[in-house]
């Protein structure tokens, strides 16, 4: 098992959001978390990535206890987090943002290889190497955020709402790029609003509601669940 989250409690200040959330991800899997707004999906990802200290529970990565490790150490272990807000460096060029993504890789050649891999994945970024990240369009910024996450050569990528605010066509592009990453052996945990589409491409799904896992299983089964159909898919 690549990632194991055991009875995770997390929140902000005195406000507890997650209650005993448990989930597992195997190497090479494409897993998603779906749920209504405010359910705690981003909170789950922030806790795993080390940006938020858990209140309780355990997080194991590759069998190693990473609970409460600072984010920079979690990144060094091989988890990349592409946040909802993207957190790009707005006054740096595309190229510099990508270089920052490879901060944990010291070898210049390896950095260069990653850079080429990302430019192949998103030719659009290659065209705009020297543009400031802050002046890019919403879709380009999403690509840059995913690309920057890829730069550290992660084993596991946590991707939070990559299609948020994108036109349908760009949403397709984003999903395609995630597909390519999966084919390259990267494990992905995806949070998405676009439940229909997400359940159709991922292997397994967790349904998070009010800070609790309500349901989990194969994505196709979850998509056919009557409750999920009623609440999320609107059928």
């Amino acid at each position, binding site marked *: 098992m690549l990632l194991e989250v055991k009875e995770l409690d997390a929140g902000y200040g005195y406000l507890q959001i997650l209650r005993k959330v448990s989930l597992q991800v195997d190497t090479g899997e494409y897993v998603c978390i779906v749920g209504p707004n405010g359910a705690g999906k981003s909170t789950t990802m922030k806790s795993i990535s080390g940006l938020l200290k858990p209140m309780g529970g355990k997080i194991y990565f590759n069998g190693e206890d990473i609970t409460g490790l600072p984010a920079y150490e979690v990144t060094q272990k091989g988890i990349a987090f592409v946040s909802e807000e*993207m957190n790009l*460096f707005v006054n740096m060029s595309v190229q510099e943002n990508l270089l*920052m993504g490879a*901060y944990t890789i010291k070898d210049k050649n390896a950095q260069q290889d990653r850079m080429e891999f990302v430019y192949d994945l998103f030719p659009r970024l290659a065209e705009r190497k020297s543009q400031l990240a802050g002046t890019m369009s919403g879709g380009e910024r999403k690509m840059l955020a995913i690309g920057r996450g890829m730069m550290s050569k992660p084993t596991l990528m946590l991707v939070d709402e990559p299609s948020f605010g994108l036109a349908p066509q760009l949403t397709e592009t984003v999903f395609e790029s995630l597909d390519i990453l999966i084919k390259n052996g990267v494990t992905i945990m995806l949070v998405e609003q676009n439940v229909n589409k997400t359940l159709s491409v991922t292997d397994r799904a967790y349904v998070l509601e009010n800070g609790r896992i309500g349901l989990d299983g194969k994505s196709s089964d979850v998509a056919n669940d009557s409750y999920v159909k009623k609440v999320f898919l609107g059928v």
Partner: protein
Amino acid sequence: MYINFKAIANWAKSAAGITITISIAVALYATINSGPYVLVNTIITGGMLALVATGLTLMLGVLNIAMFAHGEYFMIGSLTAFYVFTPISNYIMENPDSFLVIIGPVIAIVLSMVSGAIAGVISEKLVFGPLRRRSTDNWVMNSFLLTVGLSVLLINLHQLIFGADFKGIVRYWGGMPVSIAGAFISRDRIMAFLISGLIVFLFWFFMTYTRTGRAIRAVSQDATGAQIVGINIENIVLLTIALSCALAGVAGGSLLFMYPSYPTMGLEPLYMAWFVVILSGLGNILGAVAGAFMVALLKVVTVEYIGAGWDFVVPSALIMLILIFKPSGIFGSEVRGVLDK
């Protein structure tokens, strides 16, 4: 060669272009009108201000601290240089052929830089770090108040331990003044300018092209993003405060021959550096350097043509005007204000 005239014209029409052009014109006029010493004074004051102001910008951008104790690191630098150089200078008097004639001042100035950095690290460990760990609510205000307290504390510590008198030296490097374009300029002044120029250049290079410099900029632009890509923010914070205080320290040390050390000597460079930071927009190194020379010019020209008592009034008035018309500063168009975060 192909020259992009349109880009140049656009630049000249921008706020930065207009101010830089006007500044150069004023500098030329004052030089022709009153003599080259105007230019020399501007360049030396500007170089010193650039060192102090880049430190301020950095503290503001990376640590989110509106630093009002920065002048005291300038003071610590000059104090260190005084106590290091005085025995060296006595030794030189007796042994005029010693290698220390050349190297002695360098030792004093380097140690002033080191003492600035150490003082910065101690302040972070004792003052800012503990506050940051306890709570970051209202951080900008609380940390600002702390810096004011720190300033008062350091000023009084100086007075208590070293006394309130002027601790100065006659010169660093002796010898005849050098004649440049008909003006006689002392070697110390030339060296002071070379030192600040070299340090500003090295610093700019470090920030632009090295991995660590890039990490510092990353933290200032998006602290969460920096953590995500694997940067240990605590290290960067410590490094940043050490660097900014080292810059202030070396400014104080290298100008000891002009400004003797005394408890409140840091207040003037502090206010001037704040003018620079406000003028040039937050978090912009090259802007801070350009702004430093403009504020220096303004000060020198004011003293020359209006009178010595006015050298604070005119720059402040101008800065108010600039803030009314261009709140983000002259060079600050793309930089978000740190205080908005």
